[in-house]
């Protein structure tokens, strides 16, 4: 929660919701949770205004609240939902991916959802159709296809149902659950009991997450005759189909997490492309897609109950048509993938034919690669050498580093300090004697990958904030021109703009594009470091 992150959050709010909401958000971002009255006092807005702002933020899922009993009255505290807010930086990418995965319909749905924060299926579709202005017949068609895409998006968890508990903070939710448990007891719980409660609640939560049925999706069996019989058998034979329908009264929102999982999966596959070849990527991609449905969030590693197992079926992979005589080639390829030193794809010991994807290893490799490229393009390859060595060997002293990296000690020393100020290295002192004299102290250097990633993310937030601010500045510089462009008569007839103005507009759009694209690219880097 550095100042850089705060600034970025604030600028995102400014761009998406305007200056008034920004004021409110700013207070919440900087000072943490607080009730309406306090916000109003600090921002010197009327409390009605504040309420409106908070409403907007809650509608867009970037604010959460908690109610507590204070003496006789209930006080509601509001808080910013940071992850959700920072995810908004990814919106352009979300839209593009929706188009890729669900075509035009998907994009319109995603766009509408983002515009309104949360919507039910009917609201969403009506909104799209109303804006498109179709005649009766085409609109009926469109509705049908939109419905289909919407259902698919829900089924694939790109859209997720909003439940009342979502507007509470996660910690509040956990605390409430814990309280419920402890209230049942007569005595205050011991530490061990408390831990046990937390454990059971935690596992309950995990179960909830990994449940296969999706909230907001009704499953019905679609069949003409209902005279019973073995349903399962008939399902298998295709006489019955499962009909899935989105419940009309459930509100949905964009599930960034799922998008991020998919992006991550493509990135994992791309790792293989770089190391091996495009075919390897295709195969890996297919494997990951097969496993994707059961992935819950990006932070899981390969603990047993969350293991990404998949039944390996040759035909399924073969569809990709990697090579003629697919079966054999495929076997070979899988072998290669498995033997690869990244060790992401592994055969599950014991059960035959099942493969496991080591997500943790994959994310570590991706992070490492990323930090490496940053270091090497900023400082040069000798620095990367030092970093990798420390990652491999753990804590080392200057002399050892110099010896293993085959660089003179004085160069090494200088590089170490540079890296340390950059935030990649950690220094640990081990004094040999009580008095801690520097000359009788070992100085051990090490790289802690997560900490390095955090340090880098902070710098990237700074950059993103700067890019965004510059974008506002560039727009503000040309405010007069822009407001002219928005006049209805100018919009109708662009000959009202003279040549110089047109040129200026071109420059502006070029600049904005550059800044936006750059911010998006950096957002992607941040995603790798933070979310994967």
């Amino acid at each position, binding site marked *: 929660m550095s100042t850089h992150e705060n*600034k970025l959050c604030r600028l995102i709010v400014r761009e998406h919701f305007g200056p008034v909401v920004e004021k409110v958000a700013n207070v919440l971002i900087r000072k943490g949770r607080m009730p309406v009255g306090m916000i109003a006092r600090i921002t010197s807005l009327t409390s009605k205004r504040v309420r409106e702002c908070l409403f907007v933020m809650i509608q867009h899922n970037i604010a959460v609240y908690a109610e507590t009993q204070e003496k006789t009255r209930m006080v509601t505290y509001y808080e910013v939902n940071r992850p959700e807010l920072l995810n908004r930086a990814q919106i352009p990418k979300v839209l593009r991916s929706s188009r890729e995965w669900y075509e035009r319909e998907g994009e319109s749905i995603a766009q509408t959802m983002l515009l309104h924060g949360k919507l039910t299926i009917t609201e969403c579709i009506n909104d799209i159709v109303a804006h498109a202005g179709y005649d009766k017949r085409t609109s009926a068609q469109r509705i049908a296809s939109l419905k289909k895409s919407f259902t698919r998006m829900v089924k694939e968890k790109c859209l997720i149902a909003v439940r009342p508990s979502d507007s509470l903070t996660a910690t509040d939710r956990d605390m409430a659950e814990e309280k419920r448990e402890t209230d049942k007891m007569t005595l205050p719980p011991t530490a061990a009991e408390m831990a046990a409660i937390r454990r059971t609640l935690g596992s309950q939560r995990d179960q909830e997450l990994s449940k296969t049925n999706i909230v907001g999706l009704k499953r019905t069996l679609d069949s003409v005759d209902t005279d019973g019989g073995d349903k399962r058998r008939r399902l298998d034979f295709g006489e019955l189909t499962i009909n899935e329908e989105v419940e009309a009264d459930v509100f949905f929102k964009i599930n960034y997490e799922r998008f991020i999982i998919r992006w991550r999966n493509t990135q994992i596959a791309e790792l293989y492309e*770089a*190391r*091996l*070849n*495009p075919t*390897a990527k295709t195969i890996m991609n297919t494997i990951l897609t097969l496993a994707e449905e059961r992935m819950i969030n990006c932070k899981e590693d390969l603990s047993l109950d969350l293991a990404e197992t998949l039944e390996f079926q040759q035909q399924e992979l073969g569809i990709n048509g990697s090579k003629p005589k697919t079966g054999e080639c495929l076997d*070979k390829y899988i*072998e*290669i993938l498995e*033997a690869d*030193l990244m060790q992401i794809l592994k055969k599950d010991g014991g059960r035959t034919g099942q493969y496991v994807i080591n997500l943790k290893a994959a994310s570590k490799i991706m992070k490492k*690669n*990323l930090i*490496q*490229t*940053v270091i*090497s*393009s*900023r400082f040069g*390859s000798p620095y*990367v*050498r*030092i970093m*990798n*060595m420390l990652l*491999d060997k753990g804590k080392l002293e200057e002399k050892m580093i110099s010896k*293993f*990296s*085959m*660089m*003179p000690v004085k160069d090494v020393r200088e590089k170490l300090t540079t890296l340390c100020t950059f935030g990649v290295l950690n220094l640990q002192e081990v004094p040999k004697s009580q008095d801690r004299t520097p000359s009788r102290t070992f100085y051990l250097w090490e790289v802690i990958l997560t900490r390095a990633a955090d340090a880098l993310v902070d*710098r*990237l937030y*700074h*950059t993103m*904030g*700067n*890019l965004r*601010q*510059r974008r506002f*500045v*560039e727009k503000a510089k040309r405010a007069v021109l822009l407001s002219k462009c928005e006049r209805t008569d100018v919009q109708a007839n662009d000959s009202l703009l003279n040549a110089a103005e047109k040129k200026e507009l071109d*420059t502006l759009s*070029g*600049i904005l594009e*550059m*800044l936006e694209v*750059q911010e998006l*690219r*950096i957002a*992607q*880097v941040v995603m790798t470091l933070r979310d994967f």
Partner: protein
Amino acid sequence: MDFSNDTEKLFYETCLKGDGLTTQEFNTQYPDATAKDMALSVNALLTKGFIEVFQVRGELIYKAIKKEESGKSGSLMGEEQLVYNTIRASANEGIWTKHLKSKTNLHEAVIKRCLRTLEHKAMVKAIKSVKYPTRKLYMLMELTPSVEVTGGPWFTDQELDVDFVEQLTNACYKFVLTKSFPRDNSCIFTTEHTAYPSAQMVLKYIMDKRISQVDLSVDDITMLLDVLVYDGKIERFLNVVDDNWDDEEDTDTDWVYKAVRDKKAESAWQDCPCGVCPVAEFCTESGPINPAGCNYYAKWLDF
């Protein structure tokens, strides 16, 4: 070797047999030698440099010096001999003048004088150590300094020869690279492929091509390859062991190396001014350095 009397000879030969001898021991073995005789011969032997004397727990122990070794010190006298022997004891590690002084208990000026004569006679030489660049070490002329002292083949004049290291590293990388992928660049080897080079093979290649003038060992090459591993250019792994593997001695060559495909090292961050900005630490939203008035941006966005 010439001994002036039988006692001398006897004493020397007894010394030669064992691993250190005291006068008592000698006495029990040869009771007919008188104490005076013995003292005289020991003294004579010591001056001739045929035996050495040590003091262990208050006892004097004598040790014979082999004929070949004593050859040179025999021609020296007194202090010089002492200095020479101390230097010889340090073998190929060399000995620092300070240590020499404390070991011999001689005055610095005396040691200096001895060293000068010894150097003059081309019996010892002065070397420098990589570990302690400020110390002057002495060792026998005919010895080559140990790796500890010289730092191995990578050091020229006590300094790491960066260029040499880099050249060799590159050569190693190129060699590994050619062995890592099939000729056709889009193909990859299957898992059955086992012809990845080991350090031994790299060494052979380097020596055959005469890339290095210096003699290198497998360990030296391994160091270079390790550096390449850290550079992220190659990877090290254990080769799949053959089924008919029974060559127990060959365990050193298990590690083989394989090049990593070149990653395009581009980072989105460095593409914009902030990623390479020297004053980023001071850049705040509305401070004296800020994105709004930033010149780097102005340049970047100028088309």
